[in-house]
């Protein structure tokens, strides 16, 4: 990946792109889609696109999650797989599922330490049994506060069942890294710290909408889950 592109996208993220909404930018198809699985151009970039080669199921779905939506994206990502299994008789292991955490949903890609340190629970309205903001990623793993049958519909369970999780680098730069920078870190150090707090197994993409498009290039049906 070339430095100028990183700088370019970083500038976009640090300023107004992806929803800060300044007053101006200033301040099942009839014709089957071609299912080409694009590979990155050798030597052109270092974004990890290997996830496209794992899209080998008889059904392929890309789940677009731009909002936290009280955790619904994870529930929907799980439920649709079960429905494909129940209704169409296609076991989950024969489904290829890609969940894209972008825009405001980037926080679901972050670990418990990030949620606790920056008070994301209170900020985003996720509370524990006492009504206090949670101090952990509320969709990462099963929590007692979540009633059955929803309790097990978590991000880690999605990954264990073969689901692929991607996250938007622009959203990371715009919504996450500034929190670290506000503690006194340099811009570069803040981004590095943010990347380190991304949950294991989540692959960063240049942007969420880019990944949404590439997944469809690879044959996925588009499914909005926020």
């Amino acid at each position, binding site marked *: 990946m070339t430095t100028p592109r990183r700088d370019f*996208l970083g500038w976009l993220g640090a300023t*107004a792109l*992806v*929803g800060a*909404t300044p007053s101006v930018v200033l301040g099942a198809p009839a014709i089957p889609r071609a299912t080409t699985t694009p590979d990155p151009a050798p030597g052109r970039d270092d974004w990890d696109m290997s996830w496209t080669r794992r899209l080998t199921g008889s059904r392929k779905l890309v789940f677009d999650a731009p909002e936290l939506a009280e955790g619904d994206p994870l529930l929907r990502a799980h439920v649709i797989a079960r429905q494909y299994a129940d209704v169409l008789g296609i076991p989950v292991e024969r489904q290829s599922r890609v969940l894209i955490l972008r825009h405001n949903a980037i926080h679901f890609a972050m670990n418990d330490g990030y949620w606790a340190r920056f008070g994301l629970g209170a900020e985003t309205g996720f509370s524990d049994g006492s009504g206090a903001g949670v101090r952990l990623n509320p969709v990462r793993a099963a929590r007692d506060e979540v009633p059955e049958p929803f309790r097990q519909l978590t991000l880690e369970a999605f990954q264990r069942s073969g689901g692929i999780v991607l996250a938007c680098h622009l959203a990371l730069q715009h919504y996450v890294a500034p929190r670290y920078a506000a503690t006194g870190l340099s811009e570069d150090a803040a981004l590095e710290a943010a990347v380190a707090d991304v949950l294991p197994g989540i692959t960063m993409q240049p942007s969420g909408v880019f990944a949404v*498009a590439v997944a*469809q290039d690879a044959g996925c049906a588009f499914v909005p889950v926020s």
Partner: protein
Amino acid sequence: MTTRRNFLGLVGAGAALPALHSSLLADDRLVPAPSSDWDMSWVKKLTGKHKLVLDAPELEGGVPLVRANVIGIQYTDVFGVPMSEVSRVLVLRHHGIHFAMNDTYWATYKVGADIGFTGPDGAAIAFNPVRIPRDIFPEPFRPLMLEPFQQSGGIIVCCDLALRHLVVPRYTAAGMSPDAAYAAAKGDLLPGITLQPSGIFAVGVAQEAGCAMVPVSAA
């Protein structure tokens, strides 16, 4: 086609497709004919190795244009394909329709003040903010505008229902007859933008033609 145009006009005036009463749908006079005079030639231009339909139902501070331009750059960067191999259709629909209109429309009907687009001095702008690169925009946003998108091969289509429902009433409020207002509104569409019976129709057709669906309004 007059019958179908009237049908769509009725829908626009009534606010939304779901508002149509079943009795209207059962009226044969309102059923559009199977062929039409809508320009669908843009579909034949979707010849790239990669095809994207960029759905913009909201203005979102100009983010749809930024994303529409950036995603093309990312495709060329990551996959090493020229921009000519990335067919891109931007669909300006719903509130996004205002980006399809020229500077005269924005100035005459004070759209900037109406929907909250202000310049660096805090004053409402009197032009289409995403039409061309302007000095008021900092780099690297400046080139990520509508005309550069078109110049790079991007196709732009827009929604006739949104035009009728969200744009034409501004002309009628100024005293024009409905027919004159519709004609004037069409006359104020930016060059190179193709009107479609609806934005979601175009979104559907683009996917039938092999495009990946990409939401480019913020969420």
